[in-house]
């Protein structure tokens, strides 16, 4: 290190001098499509950052090679979308594991809300994610990432399984598709707006 990576004009925040940033979290269990969704909407190549994890390691079970260490790094990935000349939106992909407490606090603080990606074939994997979101007091919408592209057959069963409030939005999406991902995000923001009434 010592020399800065050279960036292009498009890497910088457009109109940065007048911009204020907001963020929305994209959360979900392992391999549910978080990075894919962020990449389909982001105007920059998704980036990732590392954070030092300092908490006790007994909860660290399935990360190879970190057993017994008190320090390791975890990655979160994120993308950016310039909304206007006043607002720039960042999307942060957050793994749903309880052990990333420090990172969750960092991510949740100041977030507008969260889009929770759910795989209908692995609903139970989403329970801890939703618990975390609620723990941090974040408003959220559910985006069902249908890997086979089929319509969601039984929304009521899904709502029941995830124990959702009646007004929590549930949408289906294909995280690889820009419009579909954006529609899920739009549903979340409209819901957040409704909540302010």
């Amino acid at each position, binding site marked *: 290190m010592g020399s800065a990576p050279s960036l292009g004009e498009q890497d*910088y925040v457009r109109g*940065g001098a007048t911009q204020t940033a907001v*963020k929305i979290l994209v959360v979900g269990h392992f391999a549910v499509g978080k990075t894919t969704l962020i990449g389909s909407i982001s105007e920059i190549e998704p980036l990732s950052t*590392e954070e030092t994890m300092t908490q006790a390691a007994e909860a660290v079970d399935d990360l190879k090679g970190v057993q017994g260490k008190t320090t390791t790094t975890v990655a979160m990935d994120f993308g950016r979308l310039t909304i206007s000349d006043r607002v720039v939106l*960042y999307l942060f992909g957050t793994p749903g594991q309880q052990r990333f407490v420090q990172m969750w606090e960092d991510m949740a603080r100041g977030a507008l809300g969260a889009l929770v990606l759910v795989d209908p074939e692995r609903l139970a994997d989403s329970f801890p994610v939703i618990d975390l979101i609620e723990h941090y007091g974040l408003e959220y919408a559910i985006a069902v990432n249908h890997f086979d592209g089929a319509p969601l057959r039984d929304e009521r069963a899904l709502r029941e399984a995830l124990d959702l409030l009646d007004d929590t939005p549930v949408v289906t999406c294909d995280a690889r598709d820009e419009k579909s991902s954006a529609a899920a995000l739009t549903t979340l923001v409209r819901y957040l*707006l409704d909540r302010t009434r």
Partner: protein
Amino acid sequence: MTGRDGWEPEAAELVRPYVITKGRGLPDEDDLSLITLVTASAEDARRPTRLSPEEQSLLELCSAGYLSVAEIAGHTHFPLGVVRILLASLMEGGYVTTRPPVAPARLADREILEEVLNGLRAKFG
């Protein structure tokens, strides 16, 4: 994992960040949140100090426009905690200025949410 004589294997990994940051403490997290936007200050605002190579590198990165703290960490591959400390030091010397994100109290502002909603609709239909 403490060895027989108290030697900690992971300590070595921590030495470098410590050196880079000259042992400074962590800045207030709200000052340099993940989405605080950072850019280099005008030359005349800078107090003449000797910058570390890492501070110099961050300053260069921020010279061509605004980047969020998270993006600075992403581009440099420095851990976020280290980036925060380096930026705090650069701020202290007047080398960089920041644009804080929307204040927590304003997060539920209709104005901001409407702007985001309209922006998404305009971009993606």
